[in-house]
């Protein structure tokens, strides 16, 4: 609990976001069509987390509909939802579990009531199954046939309460994605695949350094090139519109531009690291008579690099605008774009399109804002694409961070645990602050920044380690940053878990037993036991190979990873096996949860061993996956074993949960395999 003035006592960020969304949580739209389909209009974004499938399962269970009869289209931006259309904080299932079931249960009650009227029988004798209402005498009415009548039922004649868990057919059963067929046939549409009439393929020439500005432009050659439709200037660069992306890209190359260096043009990685080291608050406890262990850790900038580059279609006309893009925060996007265009918010429509990955990137609508500016300036619809290079060089990053940890110990106990984190400031201006205010947070009374509130809500040490203190120091730099899957935990908790291993060894204890003896949560101890047993913890390994563990809990979920790593070739270490155990309370779709845990493993392998971004004189060095080394097939283990604990209680969040534990397990295995103490990540950078 936080215990700060002006801050409600909530357990975590997810609770805060649910609190913020509560007043509008019931404004879900569930539509039964005359064709018998049930459509739950989802005020969230699908980016690969399998949310639409989980929601379809909840709807199908409560309605007694076939899963194949349920659609989950993504809602346009709906400003009346206030804080309840923000996809983030691993919060979607947690926040929608009750409202979706309530909406579906209410719809079912109305369908039953409509059938009862039609047949003139008591509603209490009717049942539902297979997308139909059934009478005891064998009569049957499909939901589609009842849709119109059901819509006019005001007071249902049967209770509209969700089913008890033991009457559900789907929730908790491994279920394939509802959009799998569309994906494997190439029919699934992302923003760049939409055929919006007249939308011109568009790219933007960008400065040579981050946040540089245009000094001079000669577009005469570019304008005369085949297929070029227009060249327009926007605050972030020079846009080229053409008939095809190839022509737009070639004309962009032909622009003659000079740029004024940006505000960080004299900064490189070494400078950032030095500034971070200088930003720390000092430790409270100087080591006097007690033994202590210190550790310092550096984490590099990391691009989100979602597979689908940022893409947005915009059609800005006098008096109105329409946009299509993968939006995690469509309401804030709509407000911001309306203000930018000088239009009332109601004149801007944001269509939310499925995204090709996000990892936090699509909390920001950078491409949509630019597309709106370009469409307005050029007077025609545009389809703006950031190239991979654009997003690597000018996109957002997980901020670089530095961590200083000091643990004191004595008589077999950990006495104190101080963690000082310094990070380049994380841009959180995507509606989170508004949501926290909506949830009753008064940050000015508490005297802390939004980032500090986020840090306090998310960073918890799960162990009994005396008195843990954690402080965040922020380094404001004019770079583009953003939340990266698991946010602060992706570095803070990883550093803590590495220190847990080192402290265990220092105190002569086994790394798993050391954690187990200190973990406060019994469910977490069960996970450690599970991976230790299933992964045969402590088994003899050949020289150059080792096991490593990591544990994390957040957002109502907990997880342990045990990996085996082969570091015989230090330049190419490989995780060869992973055993994962997770407990996230009520699981909706175990297949989906396993996918998230597996993806988090890839992230952990990448950020610890391989993937990061260098800042060189105000520009990021990496330009594509050729030098930003996100894991490929050869970097990931052929064997991944996942153990899910039996469902219990309410659903926890799972989308981000795995990253800190997986990262820590990889780092710990590398340390044990090599006998080194890795301090800077990624290790091979």
């Amino acid at each position: 609990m936080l215990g700060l003035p002006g801050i409600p006592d909530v357990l975590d960020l997810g609770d805060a976001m649910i609190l913020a969304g509560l007043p509008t949580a019931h404004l879900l739209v569930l539509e039964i069509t005359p064709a018998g389909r049930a459509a739950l209009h989802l005020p969230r974004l699908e980016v690969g987390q399998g949310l639409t499938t989980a929601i379809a399962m909840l709807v199908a269970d409560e309605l007694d509909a076939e899963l194949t009869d349920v659609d989950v289209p993504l809602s346009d931006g709906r400003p009346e939802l206030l804080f309840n259309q923000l996809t983030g904080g691993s919060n979607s299932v947690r926040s929608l579990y009750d409202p979706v079931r309530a909406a579906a249960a209410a719809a079912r009650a109305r369908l039953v009531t409509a059938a009862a009227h039609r047949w003139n029988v008591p509603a209490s004798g009717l049942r539902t199954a297979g997308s139909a209402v059934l009478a005891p005498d064998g009569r049957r009415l499909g939901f589609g046939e009842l849709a119109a009548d059901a819509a006019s039922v005001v007071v249902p004649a049967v209770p509209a309460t969700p089913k008890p868990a033991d009457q559900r057919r789907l929730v908790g059963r491994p279920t394939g994605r509802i959009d799998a067929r569309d994906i494997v046939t190439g029919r699934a549409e992302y923003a760049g695949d939409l055929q919006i009439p007249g939308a011109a393929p568009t790219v933007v020439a960008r400065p040579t350094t981050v946040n540089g500005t245009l000094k001079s432009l000669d577009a005469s050659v570019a304008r005369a090139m085949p297929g070029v439709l227009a060249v327009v200037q926007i605050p972030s660069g020079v846009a080229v519109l053409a008939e095809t992306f190839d022509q737009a890209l070639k004309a962009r190359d032909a622009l003659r531009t000079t740029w004024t260096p940006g505000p960080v043009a004299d900064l490189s990685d070494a400078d950032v690291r030095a500034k971070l080291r200088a930003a720390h608050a000092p430790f409270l406890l100087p080591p006097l008579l007690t033994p202590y262990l210190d550790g310092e850790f550096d984490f590099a900038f990391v691009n989100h690099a979602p597979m689908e580059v940022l893409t947005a279609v915009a059609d800005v006309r006098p008096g109105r605008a329409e946009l299509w893009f993968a939006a995690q925060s469509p309401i804030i996007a709509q407000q911001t774009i309306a203000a930018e265009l000088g239009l009332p918010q109601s004149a801007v429509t944001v269509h939310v399109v499925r995204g090709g990955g996000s990892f936090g990137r699509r909390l920001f609508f950078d491409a949509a804002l630019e597309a709106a500016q370009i469409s307005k300036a050029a007077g025609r619809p545009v389809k703006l694409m950031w190239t991979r290079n654009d997003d690597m060089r000018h996109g957002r990053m997980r901020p670089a961070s530095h961590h200083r940890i000091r643990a004191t110990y004595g008589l077999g106990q950990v006495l104190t645990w101080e963690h000082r984190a310094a990070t380049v400031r994380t841009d959180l201006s995507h509606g989170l602050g508004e949501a926290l205010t909506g949830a009753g947070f008064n940050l000015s009374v508490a005297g802390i920044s939004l980032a500090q509130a986020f840090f306090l809500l998310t960073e918890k040490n799960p162990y009994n380690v005396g008195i843990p203190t954690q402080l965040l120091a922020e380094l404001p730099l004019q770079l583009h940053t953003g939340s990266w899957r698991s946010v602060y935990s992706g570095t803070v908790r990883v550093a803590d878990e590495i220190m847990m291993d080192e402290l265990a060894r220092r105190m002569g204890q086994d790394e798993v037993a050391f954690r187990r003896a200190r973990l406060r949560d019994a469910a977490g101890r069960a996970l450690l036991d599970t991976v230790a047993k299933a992964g045969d913890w402590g088994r003899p390994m050949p020289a150059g190979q080792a096991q490593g563990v990591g544990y994390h809990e957040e957002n109502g979920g907990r997880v342990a990873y045990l990996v085996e790593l082969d570091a015989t070739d230090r330049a190419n270490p490989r995780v060869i096996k992973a055993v994962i155990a997770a407990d996230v309370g009520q699981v909706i779709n175990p297949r989906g949860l396993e996918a998230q845990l597996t993806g988090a493993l890839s992230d952990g392998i990448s950020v610890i061993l391989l993937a990061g971004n260098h800042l060189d004189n105000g520009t990021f060095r990496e330009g594509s996956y050729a030098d930003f080394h996100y894991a490929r097939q050869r970097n990931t283990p052929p064997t991944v074993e996942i153990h899910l604990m039996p469902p219990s209680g309410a659903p926890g969040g799972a989308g981000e949960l795995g990253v800190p534990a997986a990262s820590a397990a990889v780092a710990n295995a590398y340390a044990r395999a090599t006998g080194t103490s890795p301090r800077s990540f990624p290790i091979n950078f």
Partner: protein
Amino acid sequence: MPTHTFVLNGRSVTVDAPDDMPLLWVLRDKLGVTGPKYGCGVGVCRACTSHLDGQEFQPCTHSVKDCAGRTVTTIEGLADGDTLHPVQEAWIDCDVAQCGFCQPGQIMTAVALLRRTPDPTDADIDQIQNICRCGSYPRIREAIKRAASGGNP
């Protein structure tokens, strides 16, 4: 503007395009064939992977001129009408996709691999260069093995 004729997903198509236009943009912007995805434009992410005369290739680094007179198959041309290719079936059975954006390219790569190597080892699968930023790699491996064994895991 020069015209180029090639077979695309079983039909002959003719397009007007500069010789050096990468096939990816001919497919996506001129022909409306959007299954092959842009992920880098320089041949390293493999999201655009399709087949040229039955072999895997990256349309982002092949000009339309080089494809003239040849046979191009994209993800849209893999199934036989409503009957999916066994690799597509394996992808559904193993529930491989997360965001799905890399998957057309992954599937086309897997189909080409299985043509060359009907019973691939883990080491063969490790050679696949396609990025999956969502990290669906273990399920990709499982699906390839499933397809190789005729649908039995």
